């Protein structure tokens, strides 16, 4: 191989490297410019309910005492039969709410000690508990726990947020009196999205 041939090969290689560099740079720039994906399209209703429930935490404010007593964790409790799959819960585990790492606690059906319930920030109540709601609400009375459920007329019975399916979308009802009694304030950004239930009446 002559020196001239060597020179021509090295020249071709240089051009090839340059072309690759340009393509790589273009891809990188495209990645920078193109926004990251994160919409809820394609998720099943149960996953959406799980995501919505924990996102309520981002729009709610708990009393100061609750914040001070907390164990530097945002506790997401599930009571009774859970509609959420393990995959969904794994996906949620890495999230943060109000700067606190999200932890998920799942409790079986039955009576849960008041001390355990008081540590929860959000309590999702499964369909299995729809007949024990009155007892549960009496236990939760005076506890700053945001109660969410997909049980029909949950907010009419004294629950705080009810997730309902409407024309393929997840909507929710809010009982502001229950929230007020628990000392939890909800952002108006949520309130204007929700169906407000007051004193067992739809407003």
């Amino acid at each position: 191989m002559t020196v001239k041939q060597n020179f021509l090969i090295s020249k071709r290689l240089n051009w090839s490297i340059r072309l690759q560099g340009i393509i790589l740079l273009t891809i990188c720039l495209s990645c920078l410019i193109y926004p990251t994906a994160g919409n809820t399209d394609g998720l099943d209703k149960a996953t959406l309910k799980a995501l919505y429930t924990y996102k309520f935490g981002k729009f709610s404010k708990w009393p100061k005492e609750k914040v001070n007593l907390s164990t530097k964790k945002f506790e997401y409790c599930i009571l009774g039969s859970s509609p959420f799959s393990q995959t969904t819960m794994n996906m949620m585990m890495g999230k943060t709410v109000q700067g606190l790492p999200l932890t998920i606690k799942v409790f079986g059906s039955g009576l849960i000690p008041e001390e355990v319930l008081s540590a929860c920030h959000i309590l999702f109540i499964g369909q299995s508990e729809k007949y024990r709601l009155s007892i549960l609400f009496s236990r939760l009375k005076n506890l700053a726990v945001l109660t969410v459920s997909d049980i029909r007329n949950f907010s009419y019975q004294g629950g705080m947020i009810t997730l309902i399916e409407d024309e393929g979308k997840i909507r929710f009802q809010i009982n502001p009196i229950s929230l007020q009694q628990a000392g939890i304030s909800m952002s108006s950004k949520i309130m204007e999205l929700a169906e407000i239930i007051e004193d067992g009446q739809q407003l």
Partner: protein
Amino acid sequence: MNLFYTFTHWSLKRKLMLIMMTTCCTAIILMALLVIVNQAVNSQRAIQQQLITLADVLGSRSTGALTFDDSDTAIEILDALALKSNIIYAVIERANGNYFASFGDIPEYNANHTNEFLALLQSILLANEIHVVRDIYLEKERIGSIRIVSNLDELQGDVLNYMVLVAMISITCITITFFICTRLQKLVSQPILNLQKAMDSVSENKDYSLRVANAEENELGALVDGFNQMLQQIQFRDKRLAEHSMRLEKTVKARSLQLTVANKKRILWLESMARFLKHELKNSSVGIKTSLDLIERHNTEKDKVDVYLGRARKSMANMNALLQSAGDASNLEASLYKEEQKPLDFGATVINHLEVYSSIYPDISFDINCQKGLVILGNEPRLIQLLDKLISNAVEHCDHCAPIEVSVKQSLQQAQLIINDKGDGLPEDKKIIFDLFVSFRNPERKTDENFGLGLYIVKLIAESHGGQVTANDLNTGTGARFEVTLQLINPN
């Protein structure tokens, strides 16, 4: 080049106005442009800032709708933009760039446009639109973005109004500047125009007594002062020229008078000289004729013939001496005024020459009192000739026992030569002794060759030096005093 040539022919006033107005107008127009540009930029920034605030508020309000995927509520939130007429459209997008909700007519939706950098680029490229894109965050997590596009009709209207206002202010400023410049240019042009007027007046009327009023203490003041000084110098020179001219006229008149008098004198002198010569020559010729008649009558008597021949020869010699003296006098008079005169110390000249007289006249004693340092303008040989004649005259008339007094001294602005001798007195008419062929010698001392030329020569030499000679009797009794006065060059 032609423009520059035109400017060079403009008056000073017009040039000053042009310079000042050009400078002021340039400054005002530049300022106006800067103000308009600044106003346009600030207005655009203000609108952009308003849109950013609006986008932030609407984005914040839309966090719930975005989080819970409620596009209807988001549209309701965006509908608040209907109050602002300048908004073309607004879009809320999800975090992945997908369309979520909108307000107004979106031209052609393209997710790639939802970037702040590209929005800014669009704002620059599309001059009539402002694109604002703000990200929507929920607890530091980007959950979407809002994009608001506004037209610039309001801004353009404001800028146009502002331009009209600035143009009116600029025109007012230029008008005021024009009036101020019209007044201010006089500070420079007025002194120069005054100078020009004065110069024209001086050129026309030749009146160098004119002066330009000067109230400036700068370069223009110096120029006016210089012009006034120049006029003053010309006026002074003219005055001196006029004085010189008058003096010259007087001198010419005086000289003409002198010449007329001298001419008359000369005519009289020539007449008297003719009479004198006629008389003397007649006497000599009569003596020769008588001698010849007697020789003819007594030609046999040799002794008598010799005596008569002697008498005839004497008469002939007398005639020759007479003619020689007349010739010398004429030559001296003609040459005196042509001879060069130089500055000389009159006292020193007299002292130096008196030593010679002591050797020539050993029997005569001289009493000398001469002041040195009296400088006159004169011809030294002629002045020595003058001294010779006066000393010779004094020696001839003096009593040999008494010394001849010779003195030179200063009298006012003149040098005086005084020679006193104690001897024969002077005739009553003192002036006549200086005339030609006048001699008042004692008959015993008179010789045949003496025809009264000495004092005449003294008078000629004194007058040719601008001086004069006078003769007077001595106060002490017998004796004469001759006084020659000559003009000193520098009396001090």
